[in-house]
């Protein structure tokens, strides 16, 4: 028998509230399957299990708040378990859709999803709410309170997210001696290359410069591994590959930094697809636990908001954060010695001085620059 415990869902998270189990005793589960929805200070997270087995006993009840590491369920290994019941296809519902259904008072079981793999989308819920027969109004029904939303109100959520960000950033500024570097990089080649690539692709495969920049960061880190990893118990522990946390602002305010995995090894089109998917799910409130906890560095991009450059605050226990400003046409001295109007970007690095020095940081920004000059090799 193995124990399923609440995984860490970010540096500042020490507990989580179980919203719902998606499994039942006797049911077979597979590594990577989403088994529970847990609310943290920042978001509702789809929590995945990391081994195969058959559900024995569910120990945590919905609504209960448990610390990270608490045993939430007992899982039988495949050889000790009685033959598992095979369940029908599970209905896929994001936390955002679940909330909307609760607000609208809809029974999710009665809704046929039209999204990916039959997922129930917000549009399905709106359609169901619009098309549903108006119930016979009785005095009692008319005065009944609206069903309570599954989670706190948006204002509560925002307040607790603000607190989580405040705690993480205060800790960072208290404990981490930051140093800061910036470098303005010509993007002429990258822009020309990407424009030509995109002109030949259908709109559904169009790649944004943000994805090119992420790939260049991952490649640069492979050359300067001193910036990629964790500072734990007084020592730097380098990570084998870059798992890039992506600072994503949420429409209702606040931000969250889920992880894009193995960016260096993936083709650019895949990085773009995952980037787009991650941003939309982060904003819809349906991230998975494996996307929350294990970033080895963070990238923040405020280019779309028009800022020239930014210097991020490191998310402990990571040891660096890379920032990108806007793609701006600036006067530039070309290799031939002429001044030309050239698209440029200012990349920045905030890094932990306990682990690395400015020289190392400068090597990274140079490596980043080099990769952005040969985008076809990314």
């Amino acid at each position, binding site marked *: 028998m193995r124990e399923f415990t609440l995984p860490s869902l970010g540096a500042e998270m020490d507990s989580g509230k179980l919203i719902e189990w998606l499994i039942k005793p006797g049911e077979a589960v597979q590594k990577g399957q989403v088994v529970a929805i847990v609310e943290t200070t920042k978001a509702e997270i789809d929590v995945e299990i990391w081994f195969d087995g058959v559900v024995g006993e569910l120990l945590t009840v919905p609504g209960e708040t448990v610390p990270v590491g608490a045993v939430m369920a007992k899982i039988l290994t495949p050889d000790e378990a009685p033959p598992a019941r095979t369940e029908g296809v599970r209905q896929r519902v994001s936390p955002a859709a679940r909330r909307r259904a609760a607000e609208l008072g809809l029974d999710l079981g009665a809704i046929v999803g039209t999204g990916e793999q039959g997922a129930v989308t*917000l*549009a399905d819920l709106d359609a169901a709410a619009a098309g549903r027969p108006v119930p016979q109004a009785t005095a009692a029904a008319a005065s009944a309170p609206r069903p309570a939303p599954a989670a706190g109100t948006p204002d509560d959520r925002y307040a607790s997210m603000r607190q989580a960000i405040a705690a993480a950033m205060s800790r960072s500024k208290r404990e981490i001696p930051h140093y800061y570097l910036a470098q303005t990089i010509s993007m002429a080649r990258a822009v020309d290359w990407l424009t030509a690539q995109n002109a030949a692709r*259908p*709109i*559904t495969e169009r790649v*944004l410069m943000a994805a090119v920049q992420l790939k260049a960061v991952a490649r640069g880190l492979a050359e300067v591994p001193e910036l990629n990893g964790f500072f734990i118990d007084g020592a730097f522990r380098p990570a084998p590959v870059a798992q890039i946390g992506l600072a994503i602002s949420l*429409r209702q305010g606040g931000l969250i930094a889920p992880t894009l995995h193995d960016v260096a090894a993936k083709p650019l089109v895949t990085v773009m697809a995952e980037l787009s998917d991650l941003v*939309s799910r982060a904003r819809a409130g349906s991230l998975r636990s494996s996307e929350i906890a294990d970033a080895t560095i963070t990238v923040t991009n405020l280019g*779309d908001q028009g800022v020239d450059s930014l210097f991020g605050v490191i998310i402990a226990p990571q040891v660096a954060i890379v920032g990108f400003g806007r793609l701006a046409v600036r006067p530039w001295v070309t290799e031939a010695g002429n001044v030309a109007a050239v698209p440029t970007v200012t990349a920045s690095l905030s890094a932990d001085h306990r682990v690395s020095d400015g020289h190392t940081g400068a090597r990274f920004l140079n490596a980043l620059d080099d990769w952005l000059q040969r985008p076809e090799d990314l």
Partner: protein
Amino acid sequence: MDDRQLRQVIVAALREIAPEITDDELDDHRPLRRQVDLDSIDWLRFLVDLHERLQVDIPEVDYPQLSSVAELIAYLRARL
């Protein structure tokens, strides 16, 4: 499809990304991306959504012609 229907499609696609926007507060002649706070990823998702709803391809070089809802309607009308 007339302009009013085109506008409805545009608003429906926008609401997939920015559920908080309402029909009447959207000003057709103000710059759209700033008005609705769409970053480049939102903008691309919005165009892909329009592409799926209307089967119109929108190349990157045409982005400068698409700054407002009114411009979008005119652009799409010419390509349907």
